[in-house]
């Protein structure tokens, strides 16, 4: 065992143009708790990802647990020894799956079986206190519980190195404390395990053994917390970090602290005036879930009022009710003494709102954002420029005025958001977690601005936060948990009442009193006493099955995708079946009969009696003919010349004018054919009626035999062709979305850091889609036979085998496409375009492949739909059986290994 758990040398990492890490060299001690501290965007996550092997190393070298992580072989052996919990609440979890199903999935990936699997899962759930919730979907757990579940999943296989990326961000202080107790217990039980943590909470970092402070992709300093504080001569890590990141001396930092206005304004505010906001018994229910329960408060003018609580405790929902975005189920809100009316635009003029996360137009510049909001609040045009300049100066935005908002660092963006919120000089500011993810220095600046607004301009500020030290800066705060306000008063009063030193302690005490200890868990052993037998085999049916099983469950629980898979294909079949009908019937025609003789009328009956034509009122003159053709009313017009009947009797040649609407060429061509046919047979019939014999008009008679589709029914021809279109389109889209979804939601990390191989991953995910598509194939065949009444003449088994092969190929195609797409919408668009065009144009749907030329002919040969189209048409209309279709089926089967091989090669086992 080496003394270092990880050693990095000259590591750099870029995302596009953004430099995430710059030439990092660091050695991290083994067997202890190592912390990475720094603001969002400092490069902490990238660094952890590299160490876990989840991201591909770009430059430099990384050694983890004594081996080079850049080598694929070593990574494969390392995977069972590392546990990695990515950023975000439940980033590696599947939210529609229950607690049990999530843990079971990881147990399968790491090869736990039988009794041991059951014991280990039960032990983990019991130790973390999740046992009572084992049947609840992961998405419905609270933040703290999600993180505990994530930890369970990570610990299923007794790792030597535990990597936690911001495990407690947005979790309430009590859950946070319990989470760390849990980690301490694991470490006590399994000595020698190293833990690597990134965090944005400086207070938490106090309990780590060794720290690396990071900013802007570089390491600022390393050492124990004590060493860092000593070196910067500061009292807290927060301050130490400000000093380290600004490079300023400790005195300067101290001064900034001093410069904050005293918190006495609250006492000096006028009493007796109408409160700025008053909320009475606010309650909001979504279905049977109560998001906010009986919340009341009153905020005076000029006061800074804080809402403290974890993610999902109802802070944002309450704020939305105050702004009128959400109507409360019960209770009422008054703004400036008047009941809140969501439709009253006048009130909105007095309120500034800053929603959670950055919510300005990133594609506009700073100036454009400010100007847009100034105009929307109807500031007089001549004042806008002045106001924008003032705000830019006041909020320190002057230098970035013409930069795109999306290119700004987080701290600056939040200042811009605040500037936008106050552009119309509101009396009331509602700020929802404005400082989340902002580094301590920028947070201080932000608070200075808030104090200035409150104390100098008398603006009432209602702010929510999950940082306890920010709560201490408010005049009054409410502690929120699970939709309820637990306590509400001045921070110092709350601290005193709880008998604690800090607000954090006070909050924890209050929470404990309110929630009890139902989810603490027992002191049971968390880790398995047995050493795991890591499964290094390159292919494991169990892992493949784990993915297949999980994907199927997820699919079943997603109504939109399910609906698209089944209803979508049936609906599209109906539309396409009727839409691509090529029958040309019921054509409207009219006659300009300039003869008006019995002969001319007789001629017209030949047309009006045909099933192809429907007669419309006669035409009076050429101008009318022109006009009625032009409007599209008539597809065909016949002009019978004067003297037609006379000429016919005399045997003189005469001509009938035929006007065909050629706007739709295919239809025009067909009409011409019909007219010639009717004309020809009419005269044959006429001669027979007159002379009693059939004249020999031609020495050759063509006996046309329409094969396979004697009635010439368009549906019989088109429906068997629609099935291949739908079975390439929908399965490949669903498959591609299924993979890209994992990329977008972050659960793809499980492919990166667990022992599952690429082939297992791909095949496992493919199986449920093949099953689903086969069900949809069956429903399509039933529709074809029963609704469209297309006879199924050939072998059903040959068709079904063809469909199975085809679906394997088309889902495989979706996998190949998914390798190139990084967002779901891109995957959707790309798959739709790539599958539809060749299928409709080149696979022989309308023109046989043998008629195609050039590129089209080549694409046609190498497109699976070409082959399945032959199977489908062959079986439906030509009555072919298995033996006739053998070569075609073999061709189809040949696509399978090729596509899977391409997907395996293109799929990366590491992120970027």
């Amino acid at each position, binding site marked *: 065992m080496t003394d270092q758990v990880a050693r990095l040398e000259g590591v750099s990492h870029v995302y596009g143009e953004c430099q995430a890490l710059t030439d990092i060299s660091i050695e991290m001690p083994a067997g202890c708790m190592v912390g990475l501290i720094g603001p969002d965007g400092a490069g902490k996550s990238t660094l952890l990802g590299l160490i876990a092997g989840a991201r591909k190393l770009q430059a430099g070298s990384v050694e983890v647990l004594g081996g080079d992580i850049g080598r694929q072989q070593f990574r494969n052996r390392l995977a069972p020894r590392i546990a990695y919990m990515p950023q975000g609440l439940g980033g590696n979890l599947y939210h529609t799956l229950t607690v049990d199903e999530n843990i079971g999935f990881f147990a399968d990936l790491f090869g736990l079986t039988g009794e041991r699997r059951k014991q280990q899962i039960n032990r983990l759930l019991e130790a973390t206190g999740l046992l009572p919730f084992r049947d609840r979907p992961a998405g419905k757990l609270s933040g703290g519980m999600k993180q505990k579940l994530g930890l369970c999943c990570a610990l299923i296989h007794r790792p030597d190195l535990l990597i936690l990326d911001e495990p407690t961000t947005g979790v309430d202080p009590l859950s946070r404390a319990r989470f760390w107790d849990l980690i301490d217990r694991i470490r006590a039980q399994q000595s020698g395990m190293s833990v690597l943590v990134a965090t944005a909470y400086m207070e938490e970092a106090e309990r780590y053994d060794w720290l690396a402070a990071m900013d802007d992709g570089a390491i600022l300093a390393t050492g124990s917390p004590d060493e860092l504080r000593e070196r910067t001569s500061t009292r807290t890590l927060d301050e130490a970090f400000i000093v380290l990141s600004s490079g300023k001396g400790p005195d300067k930092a101290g001064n900034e602290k001093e410069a904050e206005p005293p918190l006495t304004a609250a006492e000096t505010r006028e009493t007796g005036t109408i409160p700025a906001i008053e909320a009475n018994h606010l309650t909001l229910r979504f279905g049977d879930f109560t998001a906010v329960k009986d919340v009341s408060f009153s905020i005076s003018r000029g006061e800074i009022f804080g809402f403290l609580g974890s993610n999902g405790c109802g802070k944002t929902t309450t704020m939305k009710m105050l702004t*009128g*975005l959400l*109507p409360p189920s019960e209770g009422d809100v008054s703004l400036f003494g008047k009941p809140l009316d*969501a439709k009253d*635009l*006048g009130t*909105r*003029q007095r309120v500034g*709102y800053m929603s959670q996360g950055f*919510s300005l*137009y990133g*594609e*506009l510049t700073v100036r454009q954002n400010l100007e847009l909001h100034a*105009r*929307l609040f109807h500031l007089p045009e001549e004042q806008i420029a002045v106001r924008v300049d003032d705000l830019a100066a006041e909020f320190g935005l002057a230098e970035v005025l013409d930069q795109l908002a999306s290119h700004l660092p987080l701290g600056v963006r939040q200042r811009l958001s605040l500037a936008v919120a106050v552009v119309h000089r509101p009396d009331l500011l509602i700020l929802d977690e404005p400082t989340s993810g902002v580094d301590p220095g920028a947070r201080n600046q932000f608070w200075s601005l808030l104090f200035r607004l409150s104390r100098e301009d008398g603006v009432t500020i209602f702010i929510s936060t999950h940082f306890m030290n920010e709560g201490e800066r408010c005049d009054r705060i409410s502690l929120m948990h699970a939709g309820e306000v637990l306590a509400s008063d001045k921070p110092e009063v709350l601290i005193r009442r709880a008998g604690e030193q800090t607000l954090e302690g006070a909050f924890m005490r209050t929470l404990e009193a309110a929630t009890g200890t139902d989810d603490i868990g027992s002191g049971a052993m968390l880790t398995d006493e047995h050493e795991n037998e890591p499964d290094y085999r390159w292919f494991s049916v169990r892992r493949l099955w784990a993915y297949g099983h999980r994907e199927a469950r997820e699919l079943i629980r997603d109504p939109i995708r399910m609906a*698209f898979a089944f209803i979508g294909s049936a609906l599209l079949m109906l*539309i396409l079946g009727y*839409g*691509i009908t*090529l029958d040309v019937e019921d*054509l409207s025609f009219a006659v300009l009969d300039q003869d008006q003789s019995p002969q001319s009328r007789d001629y017209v009956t030949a047309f009006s009696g045909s099933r192809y034509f429907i007669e419309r009122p006669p035409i009076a003159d050429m101008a009318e003919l022109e*006009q009625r053709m032009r409007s*599209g009313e008539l597809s065909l017009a016949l002009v019978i010349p004067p003297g037609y009947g006379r000429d*016919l009797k005399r045997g003189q040649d*005469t001509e*009938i004018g*035929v*006007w*065909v609407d*050629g*706007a*739709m*060429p*295919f*239809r025009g*061509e067909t009409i*011409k054919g019909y*007219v010639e046919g009717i*004309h*020809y047979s009419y005269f044959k019939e006429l001669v027979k009626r007159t002379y009693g014999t059939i004249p020999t*008009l*031609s*020495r*050759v008679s*063509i*006996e046309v*035999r329409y094969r*396979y589709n004697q009635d*010439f029914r368009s549906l019989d021809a*088109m429906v*068997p062709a629609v099935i291949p279109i739908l079975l390439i389109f929908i399965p490949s*889209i669903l498959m591609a979305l299924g993979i890209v979804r994992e990329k977008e939601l972050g659960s793809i990390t499980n492919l990166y850091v667990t022992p599952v191989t690429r082939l297992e991953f791909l095949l496992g995910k493919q199986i449920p889609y093949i099953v689903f598509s086969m069900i949809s194939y069956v429903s399509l065949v039933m529709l074809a036979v029963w609704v469209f009444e297309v006879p199924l003449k050939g072998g059903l088994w040959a068709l079904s085998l063809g469909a199975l092969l085809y679906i394997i190929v088309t889902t495989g195609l979706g996998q190949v496409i998914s390798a190139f797409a990084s967002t779901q919408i891109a995957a*959707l*668009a790309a798959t739709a375009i790539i599958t539809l065009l060749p299928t409709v144009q080149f696979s022989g749907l309308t023109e*046989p492949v*043998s*008629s195609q*030329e050039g590129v089209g002919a080549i694409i046609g040969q190498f497109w699976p739909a070409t082959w399945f189209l032959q199977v489908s048409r*062959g079986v439906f209309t*030509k009555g072919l059986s298995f033996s006739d279709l053998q070569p075609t089926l073999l061709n189809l089967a040949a696509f399978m290994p090729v596509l899977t091989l391409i997907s395996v090669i293109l799929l990366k086992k590491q992120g970027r």
Partner: protein
Amino acid sequence: MKSLANIWNLGLKELRSLWGDKVLLVFVLLAFTLIVYTAGSAGSMELNNAPVAVVDEDQTTLSRRVIQSFQQPWFLKPDLIQYDQIDAVLDRGSHTFVMVIPEGFERDVRKGDVVSVQLNIDATRMTQAFIGANYIQSFVTTEVARFIEPGSGSTELPVSLVNRVSFNPNLEGTWFGGVMELITEVTLISIILTGAALIREREHGTIEHLMVMPLRSYEIMAAKVWANALVVMIAATLSVTVVIQGWLGVPVAGSIPLFLFGALIHLFSTTAIGILIGTVARTMPQFGLLLILIILPLQLLSGGITPRESMPQLVQDIMLLAPTTHFVSLAQGILYRGAGINVVWPELLALTSIGAVFFGTALVLFRRHLSA
């Protein structure tokens, strides 16, 4: 006044956002140029390179002349096969037509008998089968007549037909395909642009931002409608003048401004549809899936691909409620047949009323969506 200013300012913001999204812009540009051009130049519903096989049991001058009468570009050069191969080639689908010239064909024709020639057609190839049969019939009859009486044309009936194909004399597919594709793109792109603009605002959280400002929901919606409609109008104008008239060389019969006016009214409905889907879909992928389910019937059943009169009556009646049906018939009237406002006013009226209903519905749903 304030309201108009809001709509104007918000619309400018939409245009700026769109300008920032270069990928989307390129996509729009391609849709109106390259894709319209490809569809126009591909146009392939007519007979083209149809594969023919012939069983020549006669092996005479006449039979060879008949075989040679199959001409490009309608037919490929016929392949000679044996009698027992007929079923195989038809089953395989490699040939659509198989003609059997019987033994003694030339001898019997010379005798003055009427000789039967068998023509097998794979009727599952609807498009080629019917038109191709007509062509083959006329080729063979003409060839035989010429053989008997050199210099003569087809057989003479006392009354001959004089065909005049209006609006597209040579029945060229290019004319049809290009214009129909343009119509499809106008519908598709306007739905995508407005819907995506709405979903983007929601995904970025900016829609909440707008809701707490002194703005009304119809202002937000109207801004999206005018800005995205403007982009589509510009693209459509360029497409019809540069691509369709210039590049593809289609002679447009009617007034282009009138067509564009119709397109503008049509855009009222389609942008409203975009907003509707945008309010129903929670995420971009859901939007995409819903879009596919909505755009396909709008496009396929509108009469732009296959003739409306061939569809079941129920489908025809339902499709009267879709704006595309009226837009397609309006566009065909103006662009192919040179129809003026006196002819197409019923379509304009229908489009306007459908647009009003869609816009109203979208507004109601959008309001409810914002307040939920």
